[in-house]
């Protein structure tokens, strides 16, 4: 037997396979710190939260925390959270879509200047902005005073410490989250599609509805999902502008901890919020895909 008979392997096959393994290991090594960080700050706390939710106030293992979620008070607060979030998202779409559209049609340089006005509130604390709304909206606040001076109303309108105030404040905070992804997706729409639509015989309104709108559906879906999900867990603004009258899920979580010191109950509420958020995101993704294709066939 010669050496060639023993070594039936193709040339350098073992060496090359080893080289590939080493390269993969190196890539894995590079991403390891990030994965560890995600595990440490995300998975561990969440697992701990889920673990906590399984024990009642006396420290015994029970399903009491989840059974409690079915009480009318919680169910109602859950439904009103969904309603407020949906309303805020809807108003944000109505206000934000035209703004994003305008920005996307302007020359890039002008749009960038105007974008600063949308991003600017981001640099201001939510707390400051929320207190500013309190000043504007209260009984003897700027808005009520002006409306009375103009003679449009005789009695102060109840603009704050209720649902109205909550929604106004939340819309203000949430608008950039809707506009920015939407603007980015509209910028990415090649204007040649609108020319093509016009050439096919579509009026400006038709080409907007049948071409621009479907092509921006993905960005709109992303912005709306982001806004809606952020609303679901929004605490500060509803707590301050709602005046205790708007029972958001987040206020329930805060109450469970600060008023009743019941970490188990708070954990169960949080886990429920997370699960619902996941389901809603998934459903919205499906809906956006369907919207995009159905408008295309219309």
């Amino acid at each position: 037997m010669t050496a060639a008979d023993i070594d039936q392997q193709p040339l350098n096959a073992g060496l090359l396979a080893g080289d590939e393994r080493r390269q993969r290991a190196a890539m894995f090594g590079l991403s390891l710190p990030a994965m560890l960080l995600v595990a440490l700050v995300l998975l561990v706390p969440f697992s701990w939260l889920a673990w906590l939710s399984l024990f009642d106030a006396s420290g015994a293992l029970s399903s009491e925390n989840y059974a409690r979620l079915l009480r009318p008070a919680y169910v109602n607060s859950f439904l009103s959270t969904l309603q407020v979030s949906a309303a805020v998202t809807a108003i944000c779409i109505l206000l934000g879509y035209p703004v994003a559209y305008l920005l996307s049609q302007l020359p890039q340089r002008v749009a960038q200047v105007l974008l600063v006005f949308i991003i600017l509130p981001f640099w201001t604390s939510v707390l400051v902005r929320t207190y500013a709304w309190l000043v504007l909206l209260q009984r003897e606040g700027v808005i009520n005073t002006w409306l009375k001076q103009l003679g449009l109303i005789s009695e102060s309108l109840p603009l704050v410490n209720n649902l109205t105030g909550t929604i106004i404040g939340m819309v203000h905070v949430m608008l950039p989250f809707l506009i920015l992804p939407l603007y980015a997706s509209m910028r990415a729409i090649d204007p040649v599609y609108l020319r093509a639509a016009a050439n096919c015989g579509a009026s400006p309104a038709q080409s907007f509805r049948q071409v621009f709108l479907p092509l921006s559906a993905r960005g709109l879906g992303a912005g709306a999902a982001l806004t809606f999900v952020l609303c679901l867990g929004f605490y500060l603004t509803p707590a301050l502008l709602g005046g205790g009258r708007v029972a958001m899920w987040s206020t329930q979580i805060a109450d469970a901890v600060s008023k009743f010191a019941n970490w188990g109950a708070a954990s169960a509420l949080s886990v429920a919020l997370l699960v619902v958020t996941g389901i809603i995101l998934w459903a919205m993704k499906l809906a956006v895909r369907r919207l995009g294709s159905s408008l295309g066939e219309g």
Partner: protein
Amino acid sequence: MISGAVSIRNVAKAFGAFKALDDVSLDIEPGEFLTLLGPSGSGKTTLLNVIAGFERPDAGSLLVDGVEFITRPPHKRDLGMVFQNYALFPHMDVFNNVAYPLKLRRVGNSAIRERVKQALDVVQMAHLSARRVTELSGGQKQRVALARAIVFEPKLLLMDEPLSALDKNLREHMQIELKRLHDRLGMTTVYVTHDQQEALTMSDRVAVLKSGRIVQLDTPKTIYDRPNCRFVASFMGETRMLPVKKSGSGYEFAGRQLKLAQPPSAGAEQWLVVRPERLGWHGHDERDNRIEGLVVDVVYRGDSHSISLKLPGDHEISIRHTPVQDHPLPEAGQTLTLWLTPQASVLVEEAGS
């Protein structure tokens, strides 16, 4: 018979100080295949966009079948257009893209199905009618874009460099196909390209544009054989311009009086248009014009040899030597004598007449 006569009168368009269109007038016959040919920035796309209604000119008139179109919005012009990158709607499948112009014209559903199928049949795409446009190759997108442009039987078909994104083989194939399609459908076609080969292959007439002006408007053969200025001559084929000197009533090149079939214009500065395929290996001093050059190198190319020849005045030209040539293959460093017949000897001036 569908008509589609276009009459462009004194159209001007400036972007700041840059004149994209400088007083352009042009008549396009019904059923004609007219190509706007020019380098980038020559105004050819701007002119097409004026016809389509995407660009508002500063002045001028655009008559289509005698009707003034100049202020008519693009969606009311009823012109088919094939865009450079096809502009197929990505959220619609092939069928819905082609059906879109018909839906906008409120054609009934069964008629839409029939006419879309016909249009897709014309471009041999009927079998892919349910495909998403993102799944199509470049050539297939091209065909669908064409089907969308002709499905509503427009009087006028506009094409903006429709083949520029395709590879060379497919491009040459599509040139022939577009030409046949035009012969079959007979709609007036305005075609924009910067590719002279495309223009010569497909057009009934070619308008050569430079700096927002039409410098020559003629049949492909006239444009190629009788360019009216240096710009047009150098834009066609692989052309070298050799400066000639005035001598008596005629012109001389490299010390020899040129024999010309066409009397040259009066201009003092003239160039001799030299195209490799017009250079003959055999000729007579009494009858033809002698061109001498130094062989720089000889490169084997399979079907032929490519010979780089340095002409007087530091002009290099590449000619082919095929195996059937009854002339020995020259070697580098040799002086090679080639011949131009008087018919092939064309003089041009700097500016068009």
